[in-house]
């Protein structure tokens, strides 16, 4: 248990709207260990980005966050003061966002920004911080690192900017990195490089990594464990092999059936699709939130809240009334169709 760098139990985010309460995230529980990558995957509006903001304490003011437990490296960050949180962010917990151009300040050189990050949190001199910046820029694969320090973000390509962002999050040696769609804005060739880099650095510095993405290909290649989110809830959780090899929730099965895979899906054939749209999360919700779009929905599905239940293997769990055997049959049908 002590190994958990981040421990989240029953995290809920509600946003009051004129039309009612928006239940954006509901009853989320997970943990991340040192050296482990947890991927949170889901479509837009499923609450994956709000989850990361909730962990970092960066939710919009009107959002209401509750949890039974929110611990980073043994420290309670649920009730931490704002000033303590801003100490934690950037030092113990690093963040990488989707669009590096908007997360870097265009008016300062990257050297300035790297050095300031460290000096904000650690009692080091400018020279020491600069040495650390050069060391990390080289680590993230930037050549001529010392001369890069005087460059401005607009002088760098997208891939280089994202490398600078990664170096910046590493400046204080964090325990946990939260990467929200870190490669979505990048070219496919650069995407692979950045993912490879993240994975190497994570092992080297023994950090926990939460990877938030909608790209199932990225998840499969990078994650140790996967949490699939739908409409504010985790609907399936397990190791990457379990979730991709034996998807058990109908939503996970549907998602995997949607994506074309070179060499596997036949050209010109119809791809699978999930009919309908994500339900509104405003007001009182009951029952399975996927029931409207699920082709296996039964009358019980909309009756009561559907709990999380273990699948046939240890560490694999899902939120559905179907038994693991029934789900396996459905998956087989999808594969055959």
């Amino acid at each position, binding site marked *: 248990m002590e190994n958990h760098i981040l421990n989240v139990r029953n995290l809920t985010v509600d946003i009051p709207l004129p039309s009612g309460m928006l239940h954006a995230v509901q009853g989320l529980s997970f943990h991340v260990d040192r050296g482990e990558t947890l991927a949170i995957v889901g*479509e*837009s509006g499923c609450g994956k980005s709000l989850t990361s903001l909730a962990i970092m304490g960066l939710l919009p003011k009107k959002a209401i966050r509750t949890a039974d437990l929110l611990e980073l490296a043994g420290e309670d960050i649920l009730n931490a003061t704002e000033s303590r949180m801003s100490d934690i962010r950037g030092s113990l917990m690093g963040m990488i966002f989707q669009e590096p151009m908007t997360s870097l300040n265009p008016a300062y050189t990257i050297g300035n920004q790297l050095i300031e990050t460290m000096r904000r949190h650690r009692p080091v001199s400018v020279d020491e911080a600069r040495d650390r910046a050069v060391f990390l820029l080289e680590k993230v694969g930037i050549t001529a690192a010392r001369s890069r320090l005087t460059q401005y973000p607009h002088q760098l*390509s*997208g*891939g*280089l900017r994202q490398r600078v962002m990664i170096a910046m999050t590493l400046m204080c040696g964090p325990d946990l990195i939260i990467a929200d769609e870190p490669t979505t804005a990048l*070219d*496919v*060739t*650069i*995407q*692979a*490089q950045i*993912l*490879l880099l993240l*994975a190497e650095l994570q092992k080297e510095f023994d950090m926990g990594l939460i990877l938030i993405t*909608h*790209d*199932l*290909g*990225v*998840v*499969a*290649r*990078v*994650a140790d464990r996967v949490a699939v989110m739908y409409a504010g809830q985790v609907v399936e959780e397990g190791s*990457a*092999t379990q979730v*991709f*090899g034996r998807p058990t929730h109908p939503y996970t099965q*549907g*998602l*995997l059936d*949607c*994506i*074309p*895979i*070179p*060499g*596997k*899906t036949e*050209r*010109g054939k*119809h*791809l*699978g*699709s*999930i009919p309908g*749209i994500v339900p509104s999360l405003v007001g009182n919700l009951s029952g399975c939130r996927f029931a409207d779009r699920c082709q296996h929905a039964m009358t019980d599905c909309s009756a009561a809240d559907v709990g999380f239940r273990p699948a046939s293997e240890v560490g694999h769990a899902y939120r559905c009334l179907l038994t693991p055997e029934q789900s396996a049959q459905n998956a087989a049908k999808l594969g055959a169709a």
Partner: protein
Amino acid sequence: MSEIIVSASDVMRTFMISAGVFRAKRPLHAVNGVTLDIRRGEVLAIVGESGCGKTTLAKLLLGLLPPSGGDIRLDGRPVMTIPRLEMAGLVQPIFQDPYSSLNPRKSVGAIITLPLVVQKDQDPSTWRRRAEEMMALVGLPPRLYNNFPNQLSGGQRQRVAIARALINRPEVVICDEPTSALDVSVQSQILNLLQDLRGELNLTYIIISHNLAVVEHMATRVAVMYLGRIVELAETDQLFKAPKHPYTMALLESVLTPDPSLGIPDTHLGAAYPNPVDPPSGCTFHPRCAQVMAHCSVQAPKRVPVEGGHVECHLFDANLGKEKAIA
């Protein structure tokens, strides 16, 4: 009705880029000698990294930009001599982001019928019926006719964009990243729809995408672009089974299929994408190429015809290829 619907020969498009107030402008060859024949009814995909000239090429083919050199013909006629209105009836675009490509102040009906208004279609009494037929065809409930784009989901918006593109029954549809702004489950719906429409309306698609999985699923032929040139053109099966150009190989390696037993690929494309204003000498790909040879930095490769297409690489040049590589 010839078999070749769009024919581009040695098309160039150069932009003059300002390098500063007191410096001379410098040329950027966004499209640098593209020769391409698009057959009626085929799905041609153009793939490449950002900045390789995909979108400029699409604009040239749409007649929105005049080429700086070379010749583009649509059904045998030079594109720049076809009147704008007629051109719009023949070639239509579908853009990436359905949030910015639809006018938020116009209703769905007004958006879809606008091409009919512009084309001064003779029979306004039929517009509504035709728009509703088109909506049904693209899977939009006709009751949305008077709704506004902000009331629609991303997938529905993209369907509106498709309906607008198709209402005048164009010959060619250019899809610029048609699904990259959409969620996975919506992406598959739109791809299925595009497939169905192609069969039903006899369309020719040009699909611009960086998602190779989508390209493999949709395209019949693939053109790989790098720094304004088509470095490899081949039938889809051929390209995915036996890629020839080292750049194509690297692109294919970077496709992440959802298979947890595989790791993250190392594409060996070390150096970043070169600055297109200042392209490398010789073969523009040589600084990133895993199979670079001595003369690659000196001499630009010629187009070598291969089965079903061409490749531009010294490795396949009978005179310059293997022997020199050994020497």
